[in-house]
């Protein structure tokens, strides 16, 4: 099963929204994947690399990250969400 990590500033609001929206989308499309959330401050390259995909509210500049990273603020505003889901689909299917 694929593992997705959703991250934002302090793991309170933005990541909760993104996690819940993403989980709904995965369920709707019958993809089996887990979505965890975390605060950017608690994450290092090793943590990111233990996931198949990282969806972040903002750009991540941590070096040594090999896992694909998507900026997912569009899941909150609805702007560009189709592109975000396309990227997610590439990883989970």
């Amino acid at each position: 099963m694929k593992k997705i990590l959703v991250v934002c500033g302090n793991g309170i609001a933005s990541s909760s929204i993104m996690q819940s929206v993403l989980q709904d989308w995965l369920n709707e499309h019958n993809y089996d994947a887990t979505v965890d959330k975390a605060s950017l401050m608690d994450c290092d390259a090793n943590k990111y690399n233990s996931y198949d995909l990282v969806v972040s509210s903002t750009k991540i500049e941590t070096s040594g990250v090999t896992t694909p990273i998507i900026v997912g603020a569009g899941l909150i505003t609805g702007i560009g969400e189709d592109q975000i889901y396309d990227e997610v689909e590439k990883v989970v299917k």
Partner: protein
Amino acid sequence: MDIQVTDTSEEITTTSEAIQKSGSILLEHEDIQKDYINACISREKDFPTGLVLSNGMCIAMPHGKSALVKKDAISVVRLKNSTADFGRMDDKAKGIQVSLVFNLALTSGNKHLKVLRKLMSVFQNEEFMNQFAKADIEDAQKEFESVMNDNG
């Protein structure tokens, strides 16, 4: 859920002034501990919460740790005579001029996800947002309260 919509005619131009304003309302209503205001301001520096919505409107949703929150609340401030400079959530190097501040105060727990999902659907509802930005303050308060407290 305590919902407060306020207009200000003050010349508010910075993130910090904007959050002082929205936070003072949360404090008056005993929704938060005093330190919550500074927690929101300092968080904004590292992880800004400014968003450009699909209708082009610029908003921000400052928030901080649940530990400093006494009860779930949202303080919305409509800036009438100025815009406040906030960083963009998706790229903090970019600034936006915000005219609506949604200062969230959320206790931990499952309830807050419901609140956030509702807030998100409000942000994505162009018609509602256009209306909300220009409605009379009483109507804005009533409409926002009704959509956030709607259990459907």
